[in-house]
C-alpha cells in the first residue's frame, strides 16, 4: 500500500473518521500521488477524492486512469457531473460511505453542506483539513528526496533568470525565462508565479512582476517555486544588474540554525523571518507547531534591500539547507 495512504488511514482510525471527502488537490495528491491537470487559483469545494477507512479504498473523480496510479483501479473512479447531486449520489454508492457516521471534509460550500446533510442525514461533518495537515507535515526519506528533486529544478530554472538579467530586460521577461527553463527541467507548473521585481529602497519586495525594464545599478528580488511530481522546491535571492549585491543578512543564518528538532515554528518567526511549510506545494504551519526531523520549511528573510529564502530540511541537531545557489 502507498505509504501516504497508510498514514492517512491510521490517522482516520485514531480520529474516528469513517470517510474523507477531499476537495483540495494537494490533499488528493498526497493520498494518491495521482498526476491530474493543475489549474491555478482557489477552487470551491467539490469532492475529487474519497477515502473509506473500512475498505481502505481510495476513489477519485476522473473519467480516465491516465495519471492515476494502479492502487486506484478504474472501478474506483467516479464520473464528472455538472449536477453536484449526481457527484454526491455516486459517492454515496461507494462501499462504506452510506454507513459512515463521521465524514471529514477539507472545505465546504453552502451547497455541498446542504447536500451532504440531505443525502447522508445521520452523518457528522468534521474537519478533515487539520487531519491531513498533520499527517502531511512529517516527511519520509522518500518524500524528502522528491523535494530535493524539485529544488534541483527550481535552481536550474533560477539560473535562466541569472542568464537573462541584462540591461533593458523587463520583469515579465525574467518570469518568462524562468518558466521556460522550469518546463524543460522537470516541472510543468510553478508552485506560485514568481517575484521578479526591481528593489525600491525602503519598500518591501513587490510580489507581482510588471513591464518595468531593468536599469544599470538595479537590484532585483527573485522569489520562485516549482512543483515537480507534486512536490515543491523554492528559493529567493537578490540579483544585481551591473550592481554589487550587498551581503546576505546574518539574520538569515540565525533563523536557519533554529530549524532543529524540538523548536517551534514561532521561535523561527520571532527572528523576523517568514516561515512556511514545504511539501505537496505550500503547507500551512502554526506558530505552535513543533519541528521534528523530516519537516521541510521555506525560510525567507528580507533586510532592505536584500531578499533571501531557502528550502530547509529540519534536522536532529542541525538543519540541512537543500537550496545551494549562492
Amino acid at each position: 500500500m502507498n505509504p501516504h495512504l497508510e498514514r492517512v488511514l491510521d490517522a482516520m482510525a485514531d480520529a474516528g473518521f469513517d470517510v474523507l471527502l477531499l476537495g483540495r488537490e494537494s490533499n488528493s495528491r498526497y493520498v494518491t500521488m495521482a498526476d491530474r491537470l493543475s489549474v491555478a487559483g482557489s477552487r470551491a469545494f467539490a469532492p475529487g477524492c474519497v477515502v473509506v477507512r473500512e475498505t481502505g479504498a481510495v476513489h477519485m473523480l476522473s473519467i480516465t486512469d491516465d495519471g492515476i496510479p494502479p492502487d486506484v483501479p478504474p472501478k474506483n473512479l467516479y464520473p464528472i457531473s455538472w449536477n453536484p447531486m449526481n457527484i454526491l449520489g455516486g459517492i454515496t454508492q461507494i462501499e462504506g460511505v452510506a454507513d459512515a457516521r463521521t465524514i471529514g471534509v477539507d472545505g465546504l460550500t453552502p451547497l455541498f453542506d446542504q447536500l451532504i446533510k440531505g443525502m447522508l442525514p445521520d452523518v457528522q461533518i468534521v474537519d478533515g483539513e487539520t487531519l491531513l495537515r498533520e499527517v502531511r507535515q512529517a516527511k519520509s526519506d522518500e518524500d524528502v528526496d522528491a523535494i530535493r528533486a524539485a529544488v534541483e529544478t527550481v535552481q536550474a530554472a533560477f539560473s535562466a533568470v541569472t542568464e537573462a538579467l541584462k540591461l533593458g530586460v523587463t520583469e515579465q521577461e525574467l518570469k518568462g525565462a524562468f518558466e521556460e527553463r522550469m518546463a524543460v527541467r522537470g516541472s510543468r507548473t510553478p508552485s506560485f508565479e514568481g517575484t521578479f521585481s526591481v528593489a525600491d529602497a525602503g519598500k518591501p519586495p513587490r510580489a507581482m512582476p510588471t513591464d518595468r525594464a531593468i536599469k544599470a545599478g538595479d537590484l532585483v528580488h527573485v522569489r520562485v517555486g516549482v512543483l515537480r511530481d507534486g512536490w515543491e522546491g523554492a528559493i529567493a535571492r537578490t540579483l544585481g544588474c551591473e550592481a554589487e549585491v550587498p551581503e546576505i543578512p546574518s539574520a538569515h543564518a540565525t533563523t536557519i540554525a533554529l530549524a532543529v528538532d524540538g523548536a517551534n515554528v514561532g521561535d523561527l518567526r520571532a527572528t523576523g523571518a517568514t516561515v512556511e511549510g514545504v511539501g505537496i506545494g505550500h503547507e500551512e504551519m502554526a506558530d505552535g507547531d513543533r519541528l521534528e526531523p523530516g519537516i521541510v520549511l521555506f525560510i525567507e528573510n528580507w533586510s532592505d534591500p536584500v531578499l533571501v529564502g531557502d528550502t530547509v530540511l529540519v534536522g536532529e541537531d542541525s538543519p540541512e539547507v537543500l537550496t545551494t545557489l549562492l
Partner: protein
Amino acid sequence: MSAALGFDAPLDLARMRRERRAKLVEQMHAQGVDALVLLGQANVTYAAGVRVPAADQARAIHRRSVAIITADDAPPHVWTWFPEGAPDELPSDHVHPGLSLEWEEGARQLLDALPSGTVAIDEFTMPLYAVLEGHQLADATMVLSAAKVMKTADELECIRRASQINEAAIEAVRPTVTPGTRGTEVTGRFLRHIFELGATGNSVDPIWQVMPLSVKEGPYTATGDVVFPTVTKDAPLEDGDLVWVDNGIAYEGYQSDFGHTWVVGRDPDDRQRSQCRQWRDLISVVLEATKPGASARDLTRAAEEVRRDRRPWLPHFYLAHGIGTDSAEMPFLGTDLGNEFDETTVLAPGMVMVLEPVIWEDGHGGFRAEEVIAITDAGYEILSSLSWAEWE
C-alpha cells in the same frame, strides 16, 4: 523573444470595477442579500478588483484575498497578502492585512467583520465553518453568477486581449512543434511567450495531447468516448502525431481559452481536412442559431442536427461554456444537466461563450478547436481569431 503586445481598443479598468460592482449590488437588491462574504479568488477579483499572483491551489487557498461587499454600495473591505494588488480607488482603511482562514483566529477576525442582515457566502474553510455555526448564511453563487454572466465592454476587451496574447504565443510556438520536440518543451516556450507578450498569469497547465486514432487505442475511458484532456507528457512528439491543444492564460483577471488541432511534421491528410471542414461547418450552423433570446437548447439542437449519429462534443463536458474571471462559468450548454435545463438558459447581449464541439471519427481521430464569441444586440461577435493556414 516576443515583444509585449499592443492593443488598439480602449480599456478602462477603474470603470470596469465600478460597473461590475454596480451589477453585483443590483443583483443583491434583486435577491434580498445585504452582504457578500467572498473567499473564492475569481470572485474576489471580480467583486473587489483585487489582483493576486497566480498560484497553485495549495498556496492560493492559504494566501487568499477575502472581500466583503455590501448592498449599500460602500467601498468593499478586502483582506489581502498582496496590498500592491488592491485597486487605487479603494480607501486605505478598507484594505486590511491578509487573513489566515485556516486557523480559528483568522476565522474569528472575519466573523467580527460580518455585517448584519442577510449575508451570503461562496465557500468555507473548516475553521470558518466552525465559527459560523448557528449563523444563517445564504449561498452567494446565485448573486455572483447572475452578475458575472453579462460582461461589460471593458470585460469583453480583457477577454479579447487574453485571447490575443494566447493566440500570439501559439503563433510563435507552432513552428517549433516538430518531430522530436517534447511536450514539456512546447509548454516551456509557450509560457515564456505569454509572459513576454503581457499575460498576467497562466491559468491551466498547457495541454498538447497526442490523440489516439480510436477510443480503444487510448487510455481507459469511463464515458466510452475519447479521453481529453490529459496532462502533458515528456515524450518526444512523432511525425504525424495528431495533437489537441488547450490553453488558458489570464489578463487582468480574465481568462483565455484557446483550442486547436495540430498535425506534427506534415500537412493534414484529406480525411483530417474533411474533419476540420465538418467542424467549421458545425460552428457556422451553431452560429446561425446564436442570437439574443435563443435558448442553449436551440444551439445544442442545431449541433445535433448536423451530426445525428453522436452529439458532437465530449460527453463529460459541453458544447459551450461561459468564460470570464473563471475559465469555465455560466452559461453552460449541453452538459449532463440535460435538455430541459438548456431550455431555461436564454442568451442575452454581453454573454461570452466558448464553443468547443468535437468531430470524432473513431479509427481516424478527430478535430477539435475552440471559438470564443460574445452575444451582441444584433447576434454575436467572434472574439477569437484562429489561424487556418495549415488546414486550407
